[in-house]
């Protein structure tokens, strides 16, 4: 109780479009969360190391280059290897509908496309992190 939700927002891969993730970062911050933003061009290893070290409640990935299938799969493998099975992962960016079932089966909690409101992101993060904390 009283503890702030800690969120890692990451830009894995070579994509440099960061308007969306920075808007989300501000929105989560203004909603009282602790936001750690990695900056651009992170390898999957760097993202998972940051998530472990910062002990975050949720990881948000932003990818707009089309490399999501490869990158997200690698991040999940590394997270499993580091015992981070419980940390929910959100993916934002330009993700074609056809790729959503694949990402969901990897374990992605939700995909946030263009047009998502900041309010709905905040609510989603609150719900996902509460569910995670309720677990024994």
């Amino acid at each position, binding site marked *: 109780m009283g503890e702030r939700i800690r969120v890692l927002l990451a830009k894995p*891969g*070579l*994509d*440099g*479009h*960061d*308007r969306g*993730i*920075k*808007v989300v*970062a*501000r*929105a989560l*911050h203004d909603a009282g969360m602790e*936001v750690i*933003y*990695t*900056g*651009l*061009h992170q*390898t999957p290893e760097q993202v998972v190391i940051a998530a472990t070290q910062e002990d975050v409640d949720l990881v948000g990935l932003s990818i707009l*280059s*089309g*490399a*999501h*299938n*490869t*990158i997200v799969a*690698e991040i999940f493998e590394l997270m499993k290897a580091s015992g981070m099975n419980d940390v929910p992962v959100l993916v934002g960016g*330009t993700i*074609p*509908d*056809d790729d959503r079932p694949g990402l969901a089966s990897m374990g992605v909690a939700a995909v946030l*496309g*263009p*047009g998502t*409101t*900041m*309010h709905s992101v905040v609510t989603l993060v609150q719900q996902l992190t509460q569910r995670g904390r309720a677990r024994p």
Partner: protein
Amino acid sequence: MAELRKKEFRTLDDIQLKRVYTQADVVAPSVGNPIGMPGEFPFTRGVSPEMHRQSFWIMGMYSGGGTAEETNKRFRYLLGQGQTGFSIALDLPTQMGYDPDDPMSKGEVGKVGVTLASLEDLERLFDGIPFEKVRQIRTTANAISPLFVAMVIAMARRRGIDPRTINLFVQNDVLKEYIARGTYIYPPAPSLKHCVDVIEYCARNGLRNWTPMSVSGYHIRDSGATPAQELAFCLANAIAYFQEAVGRGVKVDDFAQNVWMFLAGDIAFLEEVAKFRCARRIWSKLMRERFGSTVSETQALKIFCYTLGGRLTAQQPLNNIARVAIMTLAAVLGGVQTLATSSYDEAFSTPTEEAATIALRTQQIVANESGVADIVDALGGSWALETLTSELEARVLAILEQVEQKGGAAACIESGYFQQQLSGAAYRYQREVDSGERVVVGVNAFKTDEEPKIPLYRPDPEVERRQVASVQALRSRRDNIAVQAALAGLEQVARGGGNTIEPLIACADAYATTGEICGTLRRVWGRYTDPAVF
């Protein structure tokens, strides 16, 4: 008093709009500087007396993706459809100086553009395409633009073509990469000098048809900037490059007439027309007063416009065709020289061929059917437009002044000032959309439950494997002793602070790879990590 729709009417730059404008609102921008005539200083009304009555703007589109062979096929198709300018979209590994088999490239090869791992890929790209039929070749190269230039020169020499007969248009604006687009390699200071190498090389080698730089406000705008920020940050970067070039003894009138400005074409119609006019007016004064230009070609700013992709919506995607038509009208009435129009599916992916064709047809309809290209600066003299143009100018100059006080563009990048200004503006905009104060059709109003169903361009997943195989085969086939010698030559020049273009041509000609060449420069200059501010 009638009840109004809104409490106040404001532009993105917070300019309060009046109910109606009259002659009393139109103040001369400065003493002795009335609205003027097209083709005359300060060029508010256009760069030439006849503008689009002489010839239409160059119509281009962003295209690329997959392998060089596929892009080559697409170029041939578009050439047959009447397109005269070609943009080569490069994939992210190429733009950031990594080979397809580098671990950093995994999943990114061929995704947002074509791979140029070596001169071999460029040769495949232009196989069978006559340079003389193409009015303009553009590319998104920035951090690697000097290498791209070197590859084109190497290819031209091998084809027996004088590089001076080609019209190459490189973006070559790396400073904005730190502000907005993110495809940088080295730290800002050596990167700035690397870009100016292209300006210097073109000026000293008579490459008069080439555009050695296109200072870009577009990406800054797409990252959330207001129109005034778009112009001001872009101009601040231009000043930094020009100071470096002039410092090397290159006269402004020997290169600046070939430098273009790349701006976004947004949907707020009058605000955008005002922006293009304002850009020309400020540029002309900057060239004359600050850089001492005496040649009118230098002072007349040529604008390349691309309709603002970020304004297109994933919801009800066909609406984007209407949006792009309005953006096109604004760009044409704003007097741009080259226009690239977005495809309606841009919010999803790289355009399909059908969507790209509709985007081109939109321009052709505006050009040939609407009649707006038949009068030069047809909106000039409108009290509302002239007021907006002057108010925007005042705001741009105020921001430029702030940037100067903070030490100029490079200092503002390193402190994260630009980046923070942008994310602030993007956040404000998004809050207005979320609250419904700003209506975006199909997104926060007039919604339908239908899921968008449009055909999508899917990059071939095999592309990455093929590119990896191709670059590995090249490495075992070429003369590796010649490659090592060329790379050593490049390293020596880079360490000595000399112009890198000639040694880069030697590297390209020896079929050194993009990763090897940029790796060499990374060793000399280091790499950049962004301050990650939001």
